[in-house]
């Protein structure tokens, strides 16, 4: 049996712990993006304690409430083109998905939060503590919360096709003009449909608009 030195084992554990932590941070970043998107409907209050994040509905014009920050929010806003609602330092908590009990070494506490730049949201009133700690308790069960989203009409369709909800920031391709019913040049379809309606015995199915088509 091959023997490993204590240093090698320690390094491996640290490496694995770092990897797990990175995965957790990515997971949290996704949760953060989700919260950011919901900024027009809710305020995410990040507390330094173990109190879960609370979602407070607000109306119309959100306001930025900053009690204290480790960085200048204004400068950061200019840099990324969007307001990041969370502090830049995250200290993982117990129970946040990282089994710190199994780690023989201290876990790094300075990890950058990756917020997709494509996300544009209104300013969010976020209270940022002096030594901010992201409370992930409320975000730890994101998958469950997605499943528990309000039941929608014809939701069985999603089940049939195993459709995972497409996030708003994933709809860039869907928003292209080529993906619209008329394509890049709607007039092409317009003329084609006129000829089809003129020379074929079927009518309807192209929209409820009427039309002075004069084709009986």
């Amino acid at each position, binding site marked *: 049996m091959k023997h490993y030195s204590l240093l090698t084992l320690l390094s491996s554990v640290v490496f694995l712990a770092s990897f797990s932590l990175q995965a957790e941070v990515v997971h949290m970043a996704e949760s953060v993006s989700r919260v950011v998107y919901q900024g027009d409907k809710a305020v995410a209050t990040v507390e330094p304690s173990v109190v879960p994040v609370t979602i407070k509905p607000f109306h119309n014009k959100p306001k930025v409430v900053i009690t204290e920050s480790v960085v200048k929010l204004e400068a950061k806003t200019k840099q990324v083109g969007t307001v990041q609602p969370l502090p830049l330092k995250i200290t993982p908590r117990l129970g946040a998905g990282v089994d710190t009990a199994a780690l023989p070494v201290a876990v790094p506490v300075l990890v950058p939060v990756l917020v997709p730049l494509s996300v544009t949201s209104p300013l969010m009133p976020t209270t940022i503590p002096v030594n901010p700690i992201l409370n992930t308790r409320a975000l730890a069960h994101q998958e469950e919360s997605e499943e528990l989203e309000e039941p929608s009409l*014809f939701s069985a369709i999603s089940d049939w096709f195993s459709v995972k909800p*497409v996030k708003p920031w994933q709809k860039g*391709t869907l928003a292209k003009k080529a993906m619209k019913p008329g394509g890049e040049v709607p007039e092409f379809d317009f003329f*084609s449909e006129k000829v089809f309606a*003129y*020379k074929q015995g079927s009518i309807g199915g192209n929209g*409820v*608009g*009427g039309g*002075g088509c004069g084709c009986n």
Partner: protein
Amino acid sequence: MNIKLPLTILGLVAGSASAADHISIHHMSFEEYGDKVKAGDNVLSLEKNIGLDWTITAELGYDTVSGASPAWVATTPSSGSHDQITQDAQNMTSEVIRAGYDPHRGNYEIRPVELEDTRYSASTNVTYRDKDRDEWTAGVNYSQEEDYKSMGANAKALFYTDNTKNRSFSVGGSILTDQTLAFQEYQNGGNAQEWQDIFTSSMEVGMSQVFTPNLYAIFTAYGGYKSGYLSNHYLTVLREVDIDGDGSIGDDEVFLGQDSRPDTRISGGVNLQAFYSVSDSVVVRPRYKFFTDDWGVTSHQLGGKMSVKVTDWLTFAPGYFWYTQQGANFFIDPKAQDPTFASTGYATSDIRLGDFNANAYELGASIKLSSKWRMNALAAYYEQSNGYASNWWAVGVTYDY
């Protein structure tokens, strides 16, 4: 179904308009093979967004139709006695008998009949999006030509059924009140024309579903109801009228009759269209449409269009559609061995209501001239299994602002 080109299909353009403000003008030239109908169609489209909540679209159209349409005609020179025998035939049937009697059954021929007309049209739609981004659309339209008038209104509502807005549900309807100048029964040596009403209503229920960041589909069920004068007054049929009452039809007892269709039509079908982005530069839009009505017409259409972005400034848009149709139960092919109808009953020899398959090919191109100007061009070919064929091309420019 008139011999003229349909002018405006508002729902199509209104529903497919993009979010950017733009104005465009396009010209289409349509031509049937065999020196038949030629048409020129000019469309000016405008879309204006006011904030994020309002979208206004407007459209002006002007088109001309000229050439000839095939119809039954007598080839034997007319004489004074033809008026009386035609009147006798009219007196024995409730169907419209047209002037143009031929005493020899075999002398009726299908020949091109000259026609010429122009049409003006206008339409506008307004869409409002509420706080949930649900859409409410309403519109009106009007068109006028020498022998046809049309006026209508439409409305549509679109609701998102979940908070991720990956699924929507829409319902819409439209009504049209048209008038056409139709031939009346034979009297005093001819057929007078009078305005006849046509009422059209349609309804659609649709649902869209986003499947992936590159794929979504729209499913639509549609239905329609028409009433009034639904015949085509340009077209004629051959009717056998036993004017001498001997119980048999002689060669001199075949008359020109008016195309005659039921005065109501109930139709419906489904339409399924998908939108799939294969890559950053290739988008495909397959589509299937099913149609059926109480006249016996049933059809399937299958095909699609693509968008291939070759460069930043050049996009090609090829398309193909296959179509098959089972004709109306009162259709007789004018090329049939016996193309005649009885003295009464619905009758049409309009090949558009017959059995046929069709193929449509088209290739479009859009060239980006600048950040705001685009030039568009299209060439298309259409053929039916009954021998009919036509082609059309279109050019135009779009200005985004």
